[in-house]
């Protein structure tokens, strides 16, 4: 009879293995190395086969390090500033030059009115306005105190404080020079400085940092949610196997896309409304401008993010993959869009990258409306940018979202 060796030959269990001692069997810390190794080996195979996760795990820390290292510095410099010089004397020009030379401010010459200069702060094209009154030169020449006003954008308290202290130092220094030069005496004029720098902080006089951070966070979480939920809605169907059944019905890809996106849009707005309420009640950050405008301008942003979500869903097989891809989008935007760190202080490369992210523009809009109370006249470039972005993303999504099982 070919085949089976009779049981009992060669296999004597009692001799092949050491008899288990009573304690090791009962002991739950007992480990079998071969069993352990089997599990470890399998886990490695799982890890190495999932290329996407592997890539993410290896690259994410590197990316974070790069971003934190370059973008995440809290040094503030190269602040766009405007000098409104009504004095136009050699002394006032020297004063302004000192600001430029310090490196903290990037001065732009100004040909308009004082109010227009202040509007630049509204629009976000300047963070600081230096107002030099017409009598600056005369007063210095006479040895009297000349006052200069420094108007600072208070929406980012870090930036405001840095601007104020830098400005203060420069003014002191200039003041000492002016005094020393004028009187010819080598002694310090104790008591009254020659130049008095008066600060004016717009929008956030108390320099409450919550006022800066909260809109930034809202601006970041809303698109993340929109993107993620949309991506998951589609990927979930693929995982469950119902996507195939959907594709076979007459439902068009456009109907499918819109159908998936619309409830999530509603959800995004509800969540944004809740965030705004919390911001108001707990942090005292209200909406200074038009709430309606804010909600209106949120629409293209949310739609565009959902377009990205749909594109992610086309590229992802599983829900965790979709989650990771969404994170790949969100993480850099945190650094380069100005959520926490001012964009002016970023290296040029990252500033350009930031220009590509819609979050950047949305943050300017949301801060503009919530903190500065400005309207469409100041924000229309950002609004345009967002609308273009959202149409672009949706068009791309429609293009790529095909009803095929391939």
């Amino acid at each position, binding site marked *: 009879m070919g085949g089976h060796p009779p049981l009992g030959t060669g296999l004597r269990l009692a001799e092949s293995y050491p008899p288990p001692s009573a304690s090791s069997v009962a002991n739950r810390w007992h480990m079998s190395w071969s069993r352990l190794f089997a599990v470890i080996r399998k886990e490695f195979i799982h890890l190495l086969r999932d290329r996407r996760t592997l890539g993410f795990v290896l690259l994410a820390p590197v990316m974070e390090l790069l971003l934190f290292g370059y973008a995440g510095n809290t040094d503030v410099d190269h602040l766009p500033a405007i000098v409104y010089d009504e004095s136009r004397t050699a002394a006032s020009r020297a004063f302004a030059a000192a600001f430029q030379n310090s490196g903290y401010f990037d001065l732009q010459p100004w040909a308009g009115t004082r109010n227009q200069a202040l509007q630049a702060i509204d629009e976000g094209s300047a963070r600081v306005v230096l107002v030099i009154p017409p009598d600056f030169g005369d007063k210095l020449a006479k040895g009297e105190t000349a006052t200069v006003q420094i108007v600072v954008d208070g929406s980012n308290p870090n930036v405001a404080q840095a601007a104020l202290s830098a400005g203060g130092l420069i003014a002191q220094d200039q003041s000492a020079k002016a005094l020393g030069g004028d009187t010819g005496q080598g002694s310090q004029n104790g008591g009254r400085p020659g130049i008095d720098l008066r600060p004016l902080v717009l929008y956030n006089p108390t320099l409450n940092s919550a006022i800066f951070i909260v809109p930034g966070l809202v601006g970041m979480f809303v698109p993340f949610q929109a993107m993620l939920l949309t991506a998951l809605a589609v990927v979930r169907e693929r995982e469950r*196997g119902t996507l*195939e*059944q959907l594709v076979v019905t007459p439902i068009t890809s456009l109907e499918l896309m819109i159908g998936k996106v619309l409830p999530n849009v509603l959800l995004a707005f509800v969540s944004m409304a809740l965030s705004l309420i919390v911001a108001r009640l707990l942090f005292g950050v209200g909406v200074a401008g038009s709430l309606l405008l804010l909600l209106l301008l949120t629409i293209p942003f949310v739609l565009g993010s959902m377009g990205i979500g749909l594109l992610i869903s086309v590229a992802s097989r599983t829900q965790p993959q979709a989650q990771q891809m969404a994170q790949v989008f969100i993480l850099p935007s945190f650094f380069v869009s100005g959520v926490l760190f001012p964009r002016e202080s970023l290296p040029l490369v990252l500033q350009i990258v930031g220009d590509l992210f819609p979050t950047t523009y949305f943050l300017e809009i949301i801060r503009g409306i919530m903190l500065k109370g400005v309207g469409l006249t100041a924000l229309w470039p950002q609004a345009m940018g967002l609308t273009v972005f959202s149409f672009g993303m949706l068009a791309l999504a429609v293009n790529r979202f095909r009803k095929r099982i391939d």
Partner: protein
Amino acid sequence: MEHLTKRYGDLVAVKDVSFEVQRGEVFAFLGPNGSGKSTTIRMLCGILEPTSGHGEVLGFDIVQEAEQLKQHIGYMSQRFALYEDLTVRENLEFYAGAYQVPASGLKRRIDELIAMAGLSGRERQLAAHLSGGWKQRLALGCAFVHQPQLLFLDEPTAGVDPASRRSFWDLIFGLTGTGVTVFMTTHYLDEAEHANRVGMMHNGELRALSTPADLKARYLPGQMLAITCDDPLRGRAVLRQLPGLSQVTLYGKAIQVLARRVDPASVRAALQQNGIGVESIAPMAPTLEDVFLSLTSEGTDDMH
């Protein structure tokens, strides 16, 4: 369908498949897993693009007019794609909406389907809580909600208990009685016997196509015999050496053979010459399984 081919990179899933299906018949695509049945059915539904070849379903080209085609067909996917977190009724309502079943007849239609599926009283149950047989019937209902003329069923009885499978076939024949054409894939050879015509798929190729009876006649040149003896293992080895016998397989404790030019007496003699006592040799009704084995000439043991 003509010369349908589907390639995935180097893997040719479906090679040059051509066939025709008549109206009102139950047509079964038979074959083991991985033979290309599901791929073919997906191409026919217009959800997978063939690499080459063309086909027409209900007069619609499957590539160019796929979207129009989808209005007129029903499809039940292999995984009974139902929404687990929706109730029986909600699932049906969704698919009714997807197929634009007019609102006026909607409720009546859904009630009909629930009755047909035998799910009356279970309408509010979440699909997740249904057992395999019930899910299958619900999935069929969802595929049929818009009363299509043609139903594509991909492995509809996979993983379902035999009693449910039988009542499912009753359902199917109820539908074809009203003129609906059913195109299905299955790897259950015994079920394929019920179909009007069967196409056998193997490794992406369509090996044979005809009615079950015709297939058996054409591809089984000989008599199927079932032999019981003292020593099945050794008997099998002996008979394998015997010319004129093919497909010598063990089935339980009996040996099954396809006797081409050998009569039962010679078989008995061969076994007895080797000292094996023969209890009985009986002719067996041929099944499609035998046809399949003959076609693929694999004749391995232990396949059922």
